[in-house]
């Protein structure tokens, strides 16, 4: 019996060589528990704009769905059995990304020249001398995040060594933090995509890393929900706060500004039921204002393109780009699994154990890192109820203001922070994901205000793993040890349980 099994395992890990012509790609999708090893034998290959190193074993797992693209042609050796694999030469979006990169590169060098006071040569280039500040919009499964990654990765690969800021406003994705977070991070080296739980690279940990995009330093604000509609006023405010901080960063270092910004958005900004149209346009407006957007990319959505042209065509550039044929339709449970995986990865790191039968060489890499040091150890702390103040924003079951009778005002608004009493049964704190807020800046006490908790950045995420009401204590899982006394946290609607 075991003999038979061994044969099957060996067959699963029989390497297969794919020869890719210029401007074609090899697309693969992994189901849960699967892994894939790709080695570039010859030529240049990249995944979402991040180049693979020839000869190294690149490992992919965690339901990764990606494509190995080549500009000049390459041979790759693939080990493992993905649920789907095929090659395609319908790669028009890559042509569009390439042209966009050249145009953005022109904007960057012009912006830098302008800043340094150098003369800008006359030439055929018609772009402005502002750095590119790009908003990417598109419906569900149109490849927005992939487009953002390619554009950011190409910028980071430029000989000018740009460090663009990648902004994620999709609360369902959570960027480098956890779902519910709105984030921005400077990206100095290409972001790799080893799994679906690290779509944008990883936030810094104490583990040694080789690739800077696995040790990113994001700025994080808390929205707290995965659904954009749930409290769009809060989302609007959080986006504007993040935009102001990005602006401050550029203010502090003008040369960094020339690298530009790329803003990824949730699909719910682009399309949705008719009654959400005003909310959608308000949130797009918030992004355009907050990040001083000068280019909007609309991916494969004609109606939205026209809408954007009408609204913003006079003040900025709107470009429609084609949707990739390789985009995968995702099943509903996929997002839930990814949410779980992301939270697990945030606390415990990404661990990859090669399945039996798969032989890896010592130079195998997972997202650019050696396979050994990927596991993280979170801390679990018991804290008294009175030590950590947990707030929530607005009332939990709140009818939207618009549903109230005309003329009526609400006693509790969507934006009002409410302190949660953990000693009340049904506080809903167990398993809740909390955003631990930064301490307010030292300064004049009079400058403190009631809604301050809405505007503070997040230093990390916590999970309440146990509540002991009689002893007035709760157990908190945190990424690193921390003293919680006197700190403030916000609870949203995201929950997580170690399973």
């Amino acid at each position, binding site marked *: 019996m075991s003999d038979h099994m061994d044969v099957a395992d060996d067959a699963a890990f029989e390497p297969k060589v794919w020869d890719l012509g210029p401007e074609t790609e090899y697309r693969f999708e992994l189901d849960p528990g699967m892994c894939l090893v790709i080695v570039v034998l010859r030529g240049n290959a990249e995944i979402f704009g991040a180049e693979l190193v020839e000869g190294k074993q690149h490992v992919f797992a965690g*339901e990764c769905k990606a494509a190995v693209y080549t500009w000049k042609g390459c041979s790759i050796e693939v080990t493992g059995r993905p649920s789907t694999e095929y090659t395609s030469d319908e790669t028009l979006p890559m042509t569009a990304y390439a042209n966009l*990169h050249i145009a953005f590169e022109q904007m960057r060098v012009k912006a830098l020249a302008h800043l340094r006071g150098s003369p800008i040569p006359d030439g055929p280039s018609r772009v402005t001398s502002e750095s590119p500040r790009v908003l990417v919009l598109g419906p569900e499964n149109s490849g927005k995040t992939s487009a953002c990654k390619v554009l950011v990765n190409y910028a980071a690969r430029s000989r000018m060594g740009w460090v663009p800021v990648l902004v994620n406003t999709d609360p369902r994705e959570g960027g480098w933090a956890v779902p519910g977070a709105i984030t921005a991070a400077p990206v100095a080296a290409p972001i790799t995509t080893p799994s679906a739980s690290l779509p944008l690279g990883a936030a810094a940990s104490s583990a040694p890393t080789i690739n800077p995009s696995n040790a990113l330093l994001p700025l994080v604000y808390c929205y707290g929900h995965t659904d954009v509609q749930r409290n769009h006023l809060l989302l609007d405010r959080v986006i504007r706060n993040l935009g102001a901080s990005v602006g401050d960063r550029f203010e502090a270092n003008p040369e960094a500004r020339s690298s530009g910004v790329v803003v990824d958005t949730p699909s719910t900004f682009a399309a949705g039921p008719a009654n959400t149209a005003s909310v959608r346009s308000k949130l797009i407006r918030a992004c355009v204002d907050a990040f001083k957007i000068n280019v909007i990319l609309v991916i494969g959505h004609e109606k939205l393109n026209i809408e954007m042209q009408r609204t913003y065509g006079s003040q900025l550039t709107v470009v429609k780009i084609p949707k990739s044929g390789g985009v995968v339709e995702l099943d509903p449970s996929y997002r839930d699994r990814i949410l779980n995986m992301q939270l697990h990865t945030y606390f415990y790191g990404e661990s990859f154990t090669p399945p039996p039968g798969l032989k890896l060489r010592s130079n195998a890499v997972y997202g*650019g890192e050696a396979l050994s040091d990927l596991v993280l150890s979170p801390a679990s702390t018991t804290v008294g109820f009175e030590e950590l103040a947990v707030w929530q924003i607005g009332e939990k079951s709140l009818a939207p203001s618009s549903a109230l009778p005309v003329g009526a005002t609400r006693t509790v608004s969507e934006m009002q922070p409410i302190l949660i009493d953990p000693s009340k049964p049904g506080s809903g704190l167990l398993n809740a994901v909390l955003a631990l807020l930064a301490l307010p800046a030292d300064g004049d006490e009079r400058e403190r205000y009631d809604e301050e908790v809405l505007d503070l950045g997040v230093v990390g995420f916590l999970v309440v793993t146990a509540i002991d009401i009689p002893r007035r204590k709760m157990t908190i899982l945190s990424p690193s040890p921390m003293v919680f006394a006197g700190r403030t946290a916000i609870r949203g609607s995201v929950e997580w349980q170690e399973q």
Partner: protein
Amino acid sequence: MSVYNQPPAQQHHYGYRQPMPPAHGHHGYGGGYRAPPPPAQHVYQSDPAAFRHVYSTRLAELTMNSRPIIQGLSMLAQEQTRYSSIVAQCIEAHIRRIPPTMKLPAFYLLDAISKNVYVPYAAEFTPFVVPLFLETYDLVDNNTRSKMEEMLLTWRTGSPVGKELFGIGPQVAIERGIWGDGGNAASGSSSRVTPNQVMSELDFAIGQQERTLQSRPHDVAMQNNLAILHQLHALVAAGVSQPELKQILNQLRTLMRNSASTSAPPPIAASPPPPPPPQHQAPYAQPQNHYWKQDLYPQQQIPHPAPMPAVKIEPASALLPAAGSPDILSMLTNLVKSGVVSSNGTPIGAGSSSVQEIPDEKPDSDRLESRAYRDSILRHSVALTTSDVTRPRNHLIIECLYDTQSTQCKQCGQRFADSPSGQKKLEKHLDMHFVQNRQASQQTGRGHHRGWFISLDDWINDTVDVKGKGVDRGPARGRAAEAADQVKRNEELRAMFVVVPPGDEAKSIRCPICKETLKSEFLEDDEEWVWKNAVKKDDTVYHATCHSEAAASATTLVTRLIADDSSSRSRSVTPETNGRIASPRSSPLKNIKSESSSAATLVPGSPSSLAGMKRKAEYDEDGAIRAEEAPLKKVAV
């Protein structure tokens, strides 16, 4: 001499015992760069002979001063510390075998390995370094000699704790061998000082100042310092009397000690300037991070940007009002007072014999390059319109991302421009990997955790260094912070002491690791005699710094061996106290009880079975912890 019977003309075939392996495709590092091949660990996993073969073969490629080769060889040495004796044998044999013109790069390799992987390599090299150095010194030309002297000076403080790299004995022996008795400052100020020795120390100081100046090109004080040093150099070259020489040397050493003391660990005992304590003769700036010292290294393909347009020797009177560093100024004033330097500041022979600056690149070559790139990228016409962005112009992107950046880092895939500044960035980048690899090998077995996000202020003001892309990892994880940690750790270690048992006050004991005498001191407060910088383990007293270092390296070695041997590469969870001997205030979180029950957790849909370690932290119920909240205000990881 018979050892070096190969004339330099036959460089291609000087006697290799082993034939070149046929399929080892990395020959010819010539002018262009090719990354050192990834260490093929599996090849010599358990075979010393195979390792010896690989190492000596790669060593044979070190025929010129090439930083990538030196780096590759020292990385290999670092990865295979268990074969340290083989590495040492190979290097010694190599240096003895090659013609004099090729010896310097090999010494640079020896220097790099022993500084960066101090344990165990420094000890491996110590037995032969003195004769090897002196024999080589005799054979090489004057130019190489001065380079060797420069290197020798860095050895004075080359060990991780800022002491002699190979111990005081060998250091003194070499210095005596090349400069006579005067080389050893500890032997007293009565001994003779040779002009050569002063010249090399001056060269060394000048080089150091120039390097610092590169990072701070507008530092007027530094430029003045440099001008004065050049002035002194010219003075010595022109010839001065013995007492003057001695005076210059002493002043110079005092100066260098002072200028380094900001970054160097504080001297244990501050003694009056003239004969400086041997372990601090010429403390080098940044002793924590030895790798960055290695600007000794080959820069010939890519010359240094000139620190200043030209070194002009100005009259001292013009320099004085500029009020730069008081040290240099007082040094000059002292020398003027004593009549060594004439009061108008122009030494005899000035200008005629001052150091020959290699004609360097213009400092703004980076700018010129980026300007050229700007012009080339702006030549293309791409409109940001829906129809124009899908028009195929793929040659542009290929040119931009691949063709003009043909050198690629073999470790991470990052590409670098085919230009002098691209090469420079590549070197910096390789340095970064080197440090990363070293850190990774030192950190195996420690528990890691996700950091807290940085504060808004840090985020706004931290700007990743655009030029050295990816080198900076933010303020909290930066090298400066690490260096500061190291300094702090060293300070804590040095503050440790062992009480001398009653009656043993007069006894002198030696640290079993460095073989040096432990210093005893009387503590006024406790009214006790103690050994400073000391720790007692199993009834043996060690230097706290030596013990910590040895413990740390033993741990990494052991864990590395475990990790290498088991195919699963399982992580051994080593208690964090290793190498970090209980310091009184190590962490405000000392109440955390480490509990190594591995809570295996599995998330559905997660790629693998996950065995994370969970650390339990329990706090005292009274708010004792709360009082310590303040220092944690800015937790930024």
